[in-house]
């Protein structure tokens, strides 16, 4: 069995970091998560996951520039590492392989790789 080392929530957060690019910091990610999934979350929960992903090496972060709307405080901007991208790809491939093995869905989802 392939070890993806990504949970569902982790996977979504990782993807959101990729989608948001320069804007990927905890608050924005949490907002985006809520608007895309219609599920509620909290900044703390998102932040906790981001930290975990960083520890696993899927993300790296650095402090961005200060902005006035945050009372002059800086943001921590996250970016996906190559290893992180690989983990996402592996996860996707694993899912697709599973989908394709399931006869009921196998014909409808015929992604070319």
């Amino acid at each position, binding site marked *: 069995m392939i070890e993806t080392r990504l949970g569902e929530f982790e996977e979504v957060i990782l993807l959101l970091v990729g989608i948001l690019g320069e804007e990927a*910091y*905890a*608050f924005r990610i*949490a*907002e985006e998560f809520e608007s895309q999934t219609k599920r509620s979350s*909290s*900044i*703390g*929960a998102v*932040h*906790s996951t981001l*930290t*975990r992903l960083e520890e696993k090496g899927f993300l790296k972060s650095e*402090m961005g520039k200060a902005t006035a*709307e*945050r*009372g002059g*405080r*800086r*943001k*921590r901007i996250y970016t996906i590492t190559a290893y992180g991208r690989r983990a996402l790809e592996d996860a996707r491939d694993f899912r697709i392989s599973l989908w394709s093995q399931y006869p009921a869905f196998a014909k409808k989802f015929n992604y070319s790789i």
Partner: protein
Amino acid sequence: MRFLRDDLAEEVLGDLEEKFYANLHKKSLRAARLNYWYQVLQYFRPFAIKKSPTINTFDMYLSYFKIGWRNLLKQKGYSAINIGGLAIGISVAILIGLWIHDELSYNKYFEHYETIGQIYRLDKVENETEASTPQVAGLGTLLKNSYNTQFKSVVMVRAMLEERVIALSEKKFTQHGYFMQPEGGDMFSLKMKHGSRDGLKDKMSILLSASVAEKLFGEADPINQIVSMDAKWDIKVAGVYEDLPRNTRFHDASFFAPLELYMDGGSLDSWDNYFLDIYVQIHENRSFEEVSSIIKNATLPHLDEEKRQSGQEVFIHPMREWHLNSEFRNGHLVTSPQQKAVWLYGVIGAFVLFLACINFMNLSTARSEKRSREVGIRKSIGSYRTQLVQQFLGESILVACIAFVLSIVIVGLALPWFNFIADKNMTIPWTNYLFWLSGIGFTIVTGLLAGSYPALYLSSFQPVKVLKGTFKPGIGSSISRRVLVVFQFTVSVSLIIGTVIVYQQIQYAKSRPAGYSPKGLLSLRAGSPEFRGKYDVLRTQLKATGAVEDIAESNYSVTSTKGWNGGFSWKGRTYDPSFNTIFVSYDYGRTVGLDFIDGRDFSREVASDTAGILINESAAKEFGIENPVGELLKWAPGGSDRGTYQILGVVKDMIKGSPYEQTRPSVIFLSRNHEQWLYVRVNPDLSLHDALPKIEAVFKALVPSAPFDFRFADDEYNAKFRAEERTGQLAGIFSLLTIFISCSGLFALSAFTAEQRKKEIGIRKAFGASLTDIWTLLSREFFLLVMISCLVAVPLSYYAMSSWLEQYQYRTTISMMVFILAAGAALGITMVTVSFQAFKTGIMKPVEALKQD
């Protein structure tokens, strides 16, 4: 956000602020704020929380615990004194707390506690206003009918506890109970086990307490069963109620019977016989003052002219005041003895606890100075100050907790015995959270206070100073320790003096001649109608057994002063005060053992003796007749002429009321009727063991329906001293405890000083100091401190005890000897305690002390 890791603070705060303003656009300020806090709470996650600087704190705490435990074990004696002393202090405080709680919770058992009151009346008696409870039946009926809007209910209850024989075929029991109106069951919210509260509606019914019902019927259903009362009435059991707890008004009753049965056809509209208590329940939205002011003059239209002139007022005394606040003087409430006792024991309990705490702190503090090296080393290998504070506080709280657990055990063991002494029925409130909260709260506070000195003071030292040995404990701590020792011994010595004086007072009253001989005297209430007309047979048969010297009758017990009458006059001169009057049969004097100073007893041989009287010494003084024997007195109580009586004899004063009061003038009449109280003088040559069965056999044969329920007159006589004896016993126990606590403290303290001066003493001995020198050196300070305590305690206790004695008319004088003895005892105990350490240090080889460095 203090909990947040420092490196996260900036970004997180930024994020949260952004979220807040974003929310502010969408929602209300309140919602935004609420959400902000929600977000903050969500940050309580392991990754975000500040880590404490040490990596593995568990081992550190384990080491603290280990060191603390070793310290306790290393000095077992010291630890035992310290923990034991505190435990005893807490136990005493808990016991007294329970006692006070019991006192304060009187009558709270009744559901309508807040709205029930008793009717009191105020009468003018010779320029004094007298408050009293017995009322006329007419007032109760009046309140019931004409003032019915003021009250929820009005209940009349026979004022005295009545003694009746309740029997179910062969089972006969003498029981005490009250006769009350049927509404009483509801008013006093009797908790019924069987039947209904209003069972007394039927004249021939009775409510039994659960314990009597069980005695009579066992497991069987008692409802509607027929029992007999005094072999006179057959009445139906209408209900069984749960026994009333000890701390309620009617706890001494084991049955309630209808007042109607007691009256047996008599009118409840009479205005001359004061024999009832009237209880009322007011409406919840009314106050007692309001209703009192409405009924204030209710009795006036019904009184006779003379009484109306002098005035009478009635008022309601609320149930919540009954137990602790029912002492009236000149019509006003004054502090009652019960209230004083609550204060006294409260103060004593607080003192004992305080002493124990002082001791605990003193010893902890004194000993912690020995641990300054440990503090030095801990600091030099990198202990933070806060860690040391934690360590010492934690340790002393732990020790205090051990003491608390121990004290719970002590209370558990001592409670039955304490209940016996205090005449109460208290239990540990295991399920009361307030009890635990205060106990644990107190323990933690004591622990904190005791630990605060080492925790805050020792931890502030520079390690190098402590380790080099130049560290000297501050002078402040030794001064405060001295003050505390003085305080402890002042309390102890005062308590010793107080105890001795209480006991002297009891002895003084006990040694007072009784005026009759209660010993070997049996009393029996001949209530059953079966006794009627059998007195002479009973007398001859009892005397025939040889076990009885004589028997006699009177209208009430020899150990009480129930009858009061005025209206005596001699040669036109009238006497104002009420005389204690008693009606007796022939042979009464011989039976109870009256002591004749002059004249003679009633005699069957002299026919005119039916119009004779005996008077006591006080009465002779009151009448002021030179040679009273043979003089004629006129008696017209309440204006109705009752004839002329010749004084036959004068007897010594008899202590029938309180033994601490002057004997009241008393007049003894010869009764022409059958009286209720039977007295039997047992033959002193026979042991009671032999005599009683013979006496009982006669009673069984002649009056089979009445139980042979006799009492010893000396038991009743001794009961007069019980309240004071209780005070004495409790005071004795408390003073023993305080002495114990103070001495154990002193013992440990002297051990500590000796330990501290070990090297000094070693050098002194090396230079040739003798054992006496060392002893003087070590004991002098403590000796002086105790001396000062004595000097403070003597005037203090003298003042307190003379004001205590003031309440007794008949009181002992405080002799100087008491103070000298108490002070001597305190100094003696101190000497023994301190000398033990002094000698131990004194005989030590100097080299032992000096070899260390």
